């Protein structure tokens, strides 16, 4: 039957068959729950009773009336700064490892490895890292700097910086690989020609590499912003959001499961979605005008 169809139909059939399972999974585990959550945001519900009360838009009104709820977005600024530092580190290593360096493969593996490890495992290990007399304090002691030890997670003035550091460690590898791929797509002739013209390494970076990977930098910026707004995993596991390290998504999860207000929490989740969507649109507009 298959071999009786013409080529065009065969192609269509294969495409559909291949897409069937992924699309089914996407609908079941992403779209249906998202639509359900959107509907929950119009109810008052504790998450398990069979009794939901319709309240219309009052959950949304409560979010915008209450200044505390948005206060946790402040901490996203730390992660945004972390995201920018990540991009700088990733780009630096991508440029470096694009040239003739011995042991390129090993360095690439070392840089990318953190991203492959499960986020929960990383967060748990970094708790030990930041404990009093943990790894961080031991390193400082080795370098003779033990008078600079702090309560890295216990001091609310620096807890967000410690968490930001964990986030940078985890995600730089991803940005690095993307940049490396983009840099490797620059044709060699262009670089050789610039060599002949006597360009220095810095000139090469500034006038050839950066413009070629502009698209990728823009993409990474968009991802960093949306990642910073919806950051959740690392602070939730390391501090539970306590001590001034809470984020908007952590507040949402707590509202749903600690205080049993699933309706309000669903509304908060939709609000985050809107914020991320709007910021992405703004960034895209900004980049389009440039081009």
């Amino acid at each position, binding site marked *: 039957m298959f071999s009786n169809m013409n080529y065009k139909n065969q192609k269509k059939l294969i495409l559909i068959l291949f897409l069937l399972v992924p699309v089914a999974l996407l609908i079941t585990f992403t779209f249906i729950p998202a639509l359900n959550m959107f509907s929950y945001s119009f109810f008052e519900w504790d998450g398990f009773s069979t009794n939901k009360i319709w309240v219309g838009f009052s959950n949304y009104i409560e979010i915008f009336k209450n200044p505390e709820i948005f206060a946790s977005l402040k901490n996203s600024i730390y992660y945004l700064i972390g995201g920018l530092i990540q991009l700088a580190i990733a780009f630096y290593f991508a440029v470096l490892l694009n040239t003739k360096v011995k042991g390129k493969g090993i360095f690439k593996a070392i840089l990318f490895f953190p991203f492959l490890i499960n986020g929960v495992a990383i967060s748990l290990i970094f708790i030990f890292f930041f404990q009093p007399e943990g790894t961080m304090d031991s390193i400082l002691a080795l370098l003779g700097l033990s008078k600079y030890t702090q309560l890295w997670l216990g001091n609310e003035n620096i807890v967000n910086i410690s968490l930001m550091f964990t986030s940078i460690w985890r995600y730089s590898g991803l940005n690095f690989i993307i940049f490396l791929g983009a840099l490797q797509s620059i044709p060699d002739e262009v670089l050789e020609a610039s060599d002949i013209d006597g360009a220095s390494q810095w000139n090469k970076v500034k006038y050839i590499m950066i413009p070629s990977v502009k698209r990728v930098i823009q993409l990474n910026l968009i991802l960093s912003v949306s990642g910073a707004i919806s950051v959740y995993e690392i602070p939730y596991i390391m501090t539970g959001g*306590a001590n001034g390290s809470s984020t908007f998504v952590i507040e949402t999860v707590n509202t749903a499961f600690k*205080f049993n207000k699933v309706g309000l929490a669903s509304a908060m989740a939709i609000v985050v979605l809107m914020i991320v969507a709007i910021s992405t649109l703004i960034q895209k507009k900004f980049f389009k005008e440039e081009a």
Partner: protein
Amino acid sequence: MKKKLLSTLLVATMSLGILSGCGNGGKKNSDVVLTVLTNKSDIVDTTLKDYAEDYKERTGVTIKWQALTDYDGDVKVRLNSDNYGDVLLIPQLPASQLKEFFEPLGKLDDDNIKNIMFNDKHAVDGTVYGLTYGCGADGIVYNKKVFKDAGYDKFPTTTDELYKSLKEILANGKVPVAINSKDVWPLASYDWMGMPMSGNTNFWNETSTQEDIFATNKPLGQCMELLYQFVNNGLVEKDLATTNWEQSKADVANGKVGMMALGLWAVDQVKSLAANPDDIGFAAIPYDNSGKLRANATPDYGMAVSNKSKYKKEATDFLFDFINSDFHKKIGLMSPDKTKKSDNQVIKDFLAPGVELLQATVGTNGEEELLFKIGNEAKIDWHAGAYIQNIALASKKGRAEYETVIKQLNNSWNSARQKVLNSK
């Protein structure tokens, strides 16, 4: 041709993987399998497994235990579905919802129910939905040797002596009190103290009628004041952000930490980690300088039968077998049957100084539901600890910060109370 055969075989093998989840067709009578949900992840492969094997020998019914570490959180989500085991422990729920999820076990004056303590905790209008398998008490788990080295052969029975002993322990280079702030739930001990602090068994039912419940002259305010004194005087862990529950048990067991405010249920867990189990003791915390001790008598979780179970009779039989067994002895609790006396030395030592065990009165007018409704609105998670974590962190910073947090809690409670009462 070879490639085609290979790829067909691969697809066939992988498809078998999908089919592996499917069950078999016919069910035989003696092949009843009961799924029992529990929070006791530490003994599910030992004590509970032994019980299951013994039960199968006696009745032919297979028991499959499922241990959930974050019991309340996980089970509440499962209650949304029809799959929450055949027998399970009852999480924090309003009484009005008991009949939605659980099968009635009988009436309060039934012969097999009337002598069980706390039989009215999970009952509505005389119908009982849940019964507990063990009774404990809230109190202090402490290391006798650490206190002895500080000059106290017996656990202090007045608050002045308590603070003196803790300061002495600190001077000896040990951590006097572990509060486990990071894991949040151990802090709940400090609001459970509200009822014995007040001496009034109707305390929790009356809380929703009060304003400014954390004021320093009110019982809950006094409990938080106790926590403030511990934290602000440096009597707790050095870094509240990186405390570790499992580690803290080992620290009490080995004498690095003096005491923790927990319950009778924790004694066996700490003893099992101690080089010398007799070093571990359990005592009531003094609430004043009168020398008269009171403690919260607590039921362990209530066990219930799911009303979606396919084996309701077998599940109910198992439930009564379990609560009448001596499982409570294996976890160091008192029997739920009020006619049985405990021969456990730790319990005897605990009761020796004349501790009055107070059992909280169960409200019959939806008081508990109201308490939690206002609590959720005010972001005060009763008996779960998150709001207490904020108090602990503020206490570390100073008196002014502590008083600000207390004031905020009072304000939240007052306005939430107004909102909930006005919407009725």
